[in-house]
């Protein structure tokens, strides 16, 4: 076993020791071990190069209907005792939570291979080699590259006194690049289980090309325009839909756009959105932070609101079963999707451009924040390549625009959906998304570049 991993046998012994120390009615222990490294670059040089290794335990003790949670990263015998005792001590101080029924019982978890040797061995020298290529390609064109390349090795394990036991090791890598000229910028990113698949030349080419094509942007009057959203921008839409609407707690508390609309058409019939921790082309997640296997949950099926995801607490409130979407504790927001998908269509980007009389091509969004949970009204900026489309062609770069747009409304009418999907790491989840062509998007102001 690599020095970067604790290994399943050692972790299992540790979890069993915690459960043996517990005196509560029910006890759950979650172990997260992390060995990560990140090479960050700016101005065509590596300016930050960091590594981190730690193991953290979260223990949930249940005494009757009283629950205490304690965390710590001291995994010595004394450290384990201290965390267990602390969790039980604060459970005794708690007031009863009548909605709590039980920790989940054991359900078989599927093993998923997510630990590739090449990713595990991707050290600082190989990270520097990738970054060196990107900086060189930018410099050759008189541009400035910035970004970050991260390689992360994690082990997640959950056990409880009802017999739950689950263990999942994973190694993943991701890179993002912004290439800038004086008046423009371009972007590329990539998320993968296999670090050897990072194609520095291709990523540099994409970001450099976009930066060169968006030099000297012109003003465009804000207003409502048809848009073609690249996958980077569509990922943001899924982020907000998932965070604000697809978790059971949001529905139970009356703050989800899904509430009271199950079975009704809420989006274009071409739109299907689901979560699948074991789906193709995502960062696989076989179980949640309660050790419950991930179920595929179809949130929007051909435009119709279908379902939301649950953890054990929100499921028990409705007499349902958990879909395996519990988040790490402490958490008062409830369950959330972590592996979102939007179904692909059939269109190429060239087909999306055809027929646009006057519209806007958006590479990605920046600093988006929601204004209202029920409409998923969001404001944000465009960034790293915004273009005017005229008579079916990209004709010129434009200065970045601010939009204020309901994401739910935007998906009520979708002209075309891209036939390719791309994996993106969003704020909250991994999102596998296509590009979209939408008939209208509301831009409200412009910036100076």
């Amino acid at each position, binding site marked *: 076993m690599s020095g970067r991993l604790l290994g399943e046998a050692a972790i299992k012994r540790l979890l069993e020791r915690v459960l043996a120390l517990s005196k509560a009615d029910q006890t759950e222990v979650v172990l997260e071990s992390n060995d990560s490294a990140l090479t960050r670059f700016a101005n065509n040089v590596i300016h930050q190069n960091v590594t981190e290794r730690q193991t953290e335990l979260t223990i949930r003790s249940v005494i009757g209907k009283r629950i205490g949670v304690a965390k710590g990263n001291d995994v010595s015998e004394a450290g384990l005792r201290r965390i267990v005792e602390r969790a039980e001590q604060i459970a005794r101080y708690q007031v009863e939570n009548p909605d709590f029924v039980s920790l989940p019982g054991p359900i078989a978890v599927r093993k998923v291979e997510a630990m590739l040797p090449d990713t595990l061995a991707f050290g*600082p020298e190989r990270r520097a080699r990738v970054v*060196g290529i990107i900086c060189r390609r930018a410099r050759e064109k008189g541009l400035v590259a910035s970004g970050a390349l991260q390689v992360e090795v994690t082990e997640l394990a959950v056990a409880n006194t009802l017999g739950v036991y689950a263990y999942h090791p994973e190694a993943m890598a991701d890179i993002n690049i912004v290439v800038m000229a004086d008046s423009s910028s371009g972007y590329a990113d990539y998320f993968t289980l296999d670090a050897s698949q990072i194609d520095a030349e291709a990523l540099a080419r994409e970001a450099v090309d976009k930066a060169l094509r968006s030099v000297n942007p012109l003003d465009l009057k804000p207003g409502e325009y048809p848009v073609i959203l690249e996958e980077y921008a569509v990922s943001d839409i899924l982020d907000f839909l998932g965070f604000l609407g697809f978790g059971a707690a949001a529905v139970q508390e009356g703050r989800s756009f899904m509430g009271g609309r199950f079975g009704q058409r809420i989006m274009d019939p071409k739109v299907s959105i689901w979560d699948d921790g074991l789906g193709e082309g995502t960062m696989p997640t076989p179980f949640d932070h309660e050790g419950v296997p991930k179920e595929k949950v179809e949130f929007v099926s051909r435009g119709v609101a279908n379902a939301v995801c649950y953890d054990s607490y929100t499921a028990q409130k409705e007499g349902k079963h958990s879909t395996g979407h519990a988040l790490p504790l402490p958490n008062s927001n409830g369950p959330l999707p972590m592996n979102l998908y939007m179904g692909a269509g059939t269109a190429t980007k060239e087909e999306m451009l055809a027929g646009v009389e006057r519209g806007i091509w958006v590479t990605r969004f920046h600093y988006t924040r929601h204004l209202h949970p029920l409409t998923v009204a969001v404001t944000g900026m465009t960034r790293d390549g915004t273009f005017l489309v005229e008579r079916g062609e990209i004709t010129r770069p434009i200065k970045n625009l601010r939009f204020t747009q309901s994401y739910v409304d935007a998906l009520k009418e979708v002209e075309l959906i891209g036939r390719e999907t791309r994996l993106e790491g969003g704020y909250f989840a991994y999102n596998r998304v296509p590009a979209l062509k939408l008939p209208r998007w509301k831009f409200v102001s412009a910036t100076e570049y």
Partner: protein
Amino acid sequence: MKDLAARALDTAKARGATFADIRLIHSRQESITVKNGKVEVLAIGESQGFGVRVIADGAWGFASSGRVTVKELDRVAALAVRTARAAARVKQGDVDIGPPLRTVGRYQTPFRIDPFSVSLEDKIGLLLAADEAMRRVKGIRVAESAIELTRENKSFASTEGSLIEQEITRVGCGIEAMAEGNGDVQNRSYPNSVGRHHGCGGYEFVQAQDLPGNGQRLAEEAVALLTAKPCPHGVTTLVLDATQLALQLHESCGHPIELDRVLGSEASYAGTSFLTPEKLGAFRYGSTLVNITADATLEGGLGTFGFDDEGAPAQRTPIVRDGIFVGYLTSRETARTLGLASNGTMRADGWNRIPLIRMTNVTLEPGDWAFDDLIADTDEGVYMQTNKSWSIDDKRLNFQFGTEIAWEIKGGKLGAMLKNATYTGITPQFWASCDAICNRSHWNLWGTPNCGKGQPSQTAGVGHGTAPSRFRNVRVGVI
């Protein structure tokens, strides 16, 4: 601690580091959240670890670990040097941090009541009382109240001879009521929204907020918002309360004055800054009323400390004087580019992160106005209170903010309540339109606990002193 630190520094030097520092940290957190009468979160966390930062072959390296053993110190110090050497393969010049900095000192957050000594029953009791006050109001669907405490004990040592011990204690609390009805949901928060109000100090900070005493008013406002008029669209006079102004200051002044951001180090994440070096001392940032200071020495501020994470002492730095931009937040390395010394703003989010330039307490100095006089002096406009949403472009120019609640101002009086209020602008134009700032009796030092920056991401607690202020010709109601 001193021996462990010396061991790591010696290992780094033996491996070829020309400079090294180490932070050994033990931190403790306590979180309590009451939601609809139930204690949904009661959690205590503890974390220990160390991070070694080095310069080798003229480049930076950093490694960290949560296992505090001699063997791990040796491994991590050697790994820090290896990462620096790898970074040196993609460099254009050697890192220059200026003349050696040797600081020996000790600092402890002053407090009257140790927040960790107050019983859990007392804290839960306070939150349940606030929760009950909110839920007494018909129409409240979710009531949430919370207390968060953090204590960080930090030892710092460097190969230049610095040796510093610090204990920073942070406290935070807040309540939030969500009303549902009329096909709408609306939230109100107190004393501040999104992460609540925090400061450095003791439990007296929590007591001073009087959460139970504000629960009913807050809940009534949330319910009233359900049937309030939407904020009208147009260009008008805008009066901001102190909490919203704190976030305005944070996004449109605090971030763009971070010199590492200005020099491009954050370009791939939240972006760069319009406040480029040639503007220093010459650029009109705001009206002549606008005076902004970064002050890490203010009592009780969330950005208050004794020494930064490079060992520089806490300082007070002018940022905007009479409307002219005059200062940046700097580190040892970035200050060299301007021929200056660090003004002590490098902070790391724990043992496993490198220090970055972070806001300290970036404050707008108070003006002369009493709040009632300011409203009476305003013929027409909108008064907005408590942040709800925030967004700004990647050079910190075009912003849009939303607030939880607003009121019409007509004929010098506050009128009808407004919901879904937003305003937008361009940073220097907005601050140039500031024509009134309230006086010190309305000024408060707000704490923002969730300032994000860096890759891997880091969260910092920062402070902002503000008083209600007035801005002319602002575009409102953009939704």
